[in-house]
């Protein structure tokens, strides 16, 4: 039996923040009308998480449910269970017009953690990552330097990041550069209680 391997086999780096490739992660793309009962049921049962609002992610144990767009969810589940989960979802979806497909191998997942995690990401993404504007539970698809990425906060000091598998090495090198020692910005740390104008 050949063991499946992730793009960077769990590579990690310590600088301003801890950067690590998370290894294999089960991921399922679900496209359909998010208001449809069958779509909701397929998503929540597969992930064990409740349906997230727009731009949010709900995590539950090993599973998670991320809002990708008005007609798309990303289901997180243990890697070995992805294929069977897709089959279960297809049964749940029945004749409902929807698309559920295993994309675990098409992606790479990273975790950036530590007090400077926000700053590391803010060097690369055109997103307001101040504590007032972005916190645990929020989910954002954006640009990380020159590649597409989705980011979310697992807790107040750590980000999950998903990008395409083919650019995993670029993403890892980017994160390492942004977390290089001596490059702290000190903005978010200096203003923990910043007030947003929203």
């Amino acid at each position, binding site marked *: 039996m050949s063991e499946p391997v992730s793009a960077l086999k769990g590579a990690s780096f310590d600088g301003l923040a801890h950067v690590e490739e998370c290894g294999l992660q089960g991921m399922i793309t679900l496209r359909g009308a998010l208001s449809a009962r069958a779509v909701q049921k397929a998503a929540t049962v597969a992930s064990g998480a409740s349906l997230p609002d727009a731009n949010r992610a709900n995590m539950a144990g090993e599973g998670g449910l991320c809002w990708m767009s008005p007609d798309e969810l990303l289901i997180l589940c243990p890697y070995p269970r992805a294929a069977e989960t897709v089959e279960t979802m297809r049964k749940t979806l029945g004749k409902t017009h929807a698309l559920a497909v295993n994309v675990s191998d*098409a992606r790479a997942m990273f975790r950036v953690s530590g007090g400077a995690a926000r700053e590391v990401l803010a060097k690369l993404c055109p997103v307001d*990552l101040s504590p007032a504007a972005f916190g645990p539970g929020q989910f954002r698809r954006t640009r990380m330097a020159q590649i597409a990425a989705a980011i979310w906060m697992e807790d107040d000091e750590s980000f999950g990041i998903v990008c395409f598998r083919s650019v995993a090495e670029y993403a890892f090198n980017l994160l390492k550069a942004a977390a290089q*020692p001596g490059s702290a910005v000190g903005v978010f740390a200096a203003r923990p209680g910043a007030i947003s104008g929203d």
Partner: protein
Amino acid sequence: MSTRIAAHGRLIDRAKSVGFTFNGKPMRGYAGDTLASALLAGDQMVMGRSYKYHRPRGAVASGAEEPNALMGLGEGAKFEPNQRATTTELFEGLTARSQNHWPGLEFDVGAVNGRLSRFLPAGFYYKMFIHPRAFWKHVYEPVIRQAAGLGRVPGGRDADTYEHFHCFTDVLVIGGGVAGLQAARSAAASGASVLVLEQSAHWGGRAPVDGGTVDGAGADDFVRETVAELEAMPNVTLRNRCMGAGVYDHGYALGYERLTDHAPRAGGPRHRLWRIRARRIVTATGAIERPLAFAGNDVPGVMLASAMRDYLVNWAVAPGRRVIVATNNDDAYRTAITLKTSGIDVLRILDARSSGGGALMQEARALGIRIDCGRAIGRVSGGKRVRSVAVCAQEGTGGALEEVECDAVAMSGGWSPVVHLWSHCGGKLIWDEARAHFRPDPERPPRGADGEGFVIPAGAANGELALNGILGDADEAGKTAARGAGFKPARSKAPRGETVEEAPLQPVWLMPRHADAHLRAKAWLDYQNDVKVSDVRLAAQEGYHSVEHTKRYTTLGMATDQGKLSNINGLATLADAIGSEIPQVGTTTFRPPYTPISMGAIAGEARGAIFQPVRRTPMHGWHEANGADWEPVGQWRRPYTYLRDGESQHDAVMREVRNTRQAVGLLDASTLGKLLVKGPDAGRFLDMLYTNMMSTLKPGKCRYGLMCSENGFLIDDGVVARIDEHTFLCHTTTGGAERIHAHMEEWLQTEWWDWQVHVANLTEQFAQVAVVGPDARKLLERLGGMDLSAGAMAFMEWRDGRIAEFDARVYRISFSGELSFEVAVPASQGLAFWEALMDAGREFGVMPYGTEALHVMRAEKGFIMIGDETDGTVIPQDLGLGWAISKKKEDYLGKRAQARPHMTDPTRWKLVGLETVDGAVLPDGAYALAEGVNANGQRNVQGRVTSTYMSPTLGRGIAMGLVLNGPDRMGEVLEFPGTDGKTYQARIVDQVFYDKDGEKQNV
């Protein structure tokens, strides 16, 4: 003598001596010095040579506006040219070199240009070098290139790192002087988030030097207290050494933070580019003093009065011992008073105003300083430093009344608000007659997404020059910014500033007013570009009446100066010369950045390994370790061929083709796009996207399809597999996956949004391997698993199953003409699958092959390649692909366009095969000659080569090309001239060179 004095020095620490070198000479300064203040303290008055005339120049200013003291800093991989000595903080071990001279700063051969200056007037280069035409390329340009340019280009690779930082704030305050600090305070009191940027290392700007009190305390105290207050606020971020470089659309602004320029051994990035989004931007950028235009105003030792005051108060440096002050306003009296009270002789104050000034004049007079009203500088004498000044009447032509020996001159022509950042994004200016300067027009600000002005000028940048006015204006600006950002400003009063009342200034654009031509030719307007009053007058005389034209003709205000010192004097001179008014002449355009920023900061992290993303397949590392000679395809790297020891690229390709045709080869096809299209309307949708019929395809089958744009042109091709009733998998070209995915989404979202179709891009979910050649089936059967016999899976069918322990989807398709299976496995097992194939294939002589072998084999079979046979102007009909265009469908993307007269023109060039008469390889892209010449005298053509290769299978060169009436001209021989001087003869043949009946792929 320029020396350090005992008094003053608020920014230096005399306990910390700092060593540095200038042109190799060891020198010492103090911690807190700038390079300019340390050089002046060491009596190094000459700091560079001017750009055009190579005149000796010293520092004329003390900050970002400095035009002369530009230097090369650092060495080797840390070298950087054109750095301002006035904004360079001194550190131990700093190395500086002056620029623009040869062989040395003290003796410069190029200074001969100065003596020839009357032969080098405005527009000299345009006039001189236009004839004879041929001389430009061979004589003039090489010589001018050798002589031109400011500073030296760094030779080595930059050793530093750089980065970007995205920052969002309600209010951005640019400038950390008293105006910026007060604006930040009043904005922050509303609860808005505030980011304050200050370009220098110090807060407070000019106020601590200029004096005055705030709420009864000294300006220094006010600055210290306000900074402390702001630092304690959680919603405020303060950054010094960070310049507001530019203001752009919708509240976007760039901050340029210099992290280690002052401490190069600190580690970490050197510069950080802040990419800021602000709801409102307060520009508290202060004002810049104007020079006076008199003859010899560029002699080292002539300095802005405010700069001389800065050197005294901030760094305890006296640029001279016997100083003359020339002014048209009261502010310069502050410099005279500071000089005098520091023990420096002030020989004269030459006040161009016939009635002189106000209270400050009284104070100066009380100190015993001689004040001559209605007087001016006729000319300054001296070479490498001021020797004497000829004093004359301001209302005269320059006849000297007396000659006064001195060693420095302080000049003040009044103050101009720094309006650059206001103007970058379209803010307009109005002329303030009383203060003789342009200031922001509050009615015409740069506007944001909400249609409201998003830039708010504050303090001196808004034309308020007195301390109390500055504080009041800044307080209001902060509140306006907070309100604009959606906050309710707190009720508070602005602090009260007190300074001496000043008498009005009198505009002086030329000193003396009627200076003769001789004096005008030595009165500099733009030091950096060597533009004088005489140049602007000449330009006006020659018809350059628009300020933008004059700028380009004379180079006034160009390059790094961006009009900081030269702008107002220049356009006032132009207005005078054309008999117009200053507001009518207007200003030139201020462009970002405010002062130059490093290329490294712009690039940020994007260099070296992360210059751009490189996409890697799961087998990338294997290819790398096995001789892959890479070819970039989009952002992917694909092996062009696999080189063995001592093998040439060509030989490797030939070997790979032969081995694949005779035994079995493996191709990493993972990069091919794989788009899953699903839904009740999927078939109907694909019928619109492809030229052929896809809805009739049966599950389990594959069909080759063509995609066109609405323009009718072929944009992509690939094999479509029908998975089930509602699901198709569409293969695209390697470069096409993202583009075609976006194309599908665009039509689904913006035209057929009621169709029930979903698309998912599965390109990277699978590693795909093409197993190709007569032994392909044997190899796969050796691994064991699913039935791949011809009976179980016919040509153009696909099946799911297992091969060895791998979940696999196998497509029996061929792009080479051989028996071929494309096998998709999960990407996470791609490498293991590839290695299993290599292992099992050893007995069959398996070899990997690269993209070039793929190309050769497809060309032998006459298959087209997107990007070779197509170039964005080719339609499928041109390529003999009519069989893949459905006649039954009413519509598909491109169908209507393909009916346009130009597209149905029978004279469109059509695809044929080409075979050289002597077996040589045709040059790629070569054109086939036709009789006669066209209107441009060029030879007429009748076709061109689109693909050309050496075919190891046929042992000769083969090619495809588009030829006029090609398919009707089989057997005709055409002539193709190459760029090598030879003409190649090639016969038009059928484009399928190999296995015309397709027997080999069908076994």
